[in-house]
């Protein structure tokens, strides 16, 4: 159970890092003031991921087309390991995301990073989603029946 919860938190953090903008991430990261030494285990490198859809939306998987991705894996001096993968071709973001992932092996640091970096970006992303939903909702058709003029 603890593992599941940890995995869910880690996935959520990775989702925010993958979607957040590099500039915003660096800005918030600088304020945290952490700069651990690390070694690359793999990458950072560009590559492709084949995106899959499902036939009819719910059936068998099929290959839709590829997307560019960047990934990185790092190891900190204390042995903690971090991974990152995100759509697009941003080496700096992938490296920093992997370092953040590794640092979050420690619950204390994770809490600090969550508060200072992840939560603000998550809030901004959610706000942008909400704006998009509301803009789409404004284009919703409200059907009404014309009065027949019988009186």
């Amino acid at each position, binding site marked *: 159970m603890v*593992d599941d919860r*940890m*995995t869910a938190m*880690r996935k959520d953090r990775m989702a925010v890092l993958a979607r957040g903008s590099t500039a915003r991430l660096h800005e918030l990261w600088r304020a945290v003031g952490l700069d651990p030494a690390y070694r690359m*285990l*793999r990458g950072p*490198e560009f590559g492709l991921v084949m995106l899959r859809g499902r036939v009819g939306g719910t059936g068998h998987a099929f290959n839709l087309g590829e997307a560019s991705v960047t990934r990185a*894996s790092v*190891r900190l001096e204390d*042995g903690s*390991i971090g991974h990152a993968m995100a759509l697009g071709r941003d080496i700096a973001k992938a490296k920093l995301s992997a370092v953040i992932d590794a640092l979050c*092996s420690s619950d204390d640091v994770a809490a600090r990073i969550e508060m200072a970096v992840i939560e603000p970006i998550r809030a901004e992303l959610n706000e942008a989603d909400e704006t998009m939903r509301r803009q789409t909702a404004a284009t919703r058709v409200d059907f009404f029946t014309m009065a027949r003029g019988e009186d």
Partner: protein
Amino acid sequence: MIVDADVLEGGFTNPVLESQSTFRILMDAMARPACVVRIEAAIAPPATLGIAAGAVACTLIDADTPYWLDVVFESDALHRWLAFHTGGRRAATMADAVFALVGMPCAMPSFDRFAQGSHEYPDRSATLILQLESLDGGEPFTFEGPGIKERATIAPRGLPANFVEQWSANRKRFPRGVDLVLTAGHELACLPRSARLISAKD
């Protein structure tokens, strides 16, 4: 989730350059059958896998080429190491493997149980990477064929006992058939399916 750190270590330190130079050496070796060459890649595969076999695996295997491990290599750690450094996934069955890593060739399944390719697509066959005790000091085998000036002899130790019969059978399936990469420590030699075994002595 804490992952055993060892499986994440030991890949090429410079994947692009080292896989390119290993590929070049391998390609030359494939073009000159039975000629022993040396691999000097900065790679540290998990204990059971040698430098040459590990470098070849990291050079050739990727997400699109399922691989197979024999009983000696079969271990969770090696699967995870290969998954991390090559993106490769294990083949569903031996016959689906594009590459096979064999740690104990003398007890391996016969060559014909791996993918042989078809007459239309002979390239859809398996490449078997055999890790031997050594590439010399064993029973000498002499080959001729494309890429060999007159004759080439190699005397690896640890090949399957019925290698002569198996290789002749492989040769008879031409253009279908498997190709072999023989490795031992840092050393490597190739036996493409086009190499004809002419005698077990001489």
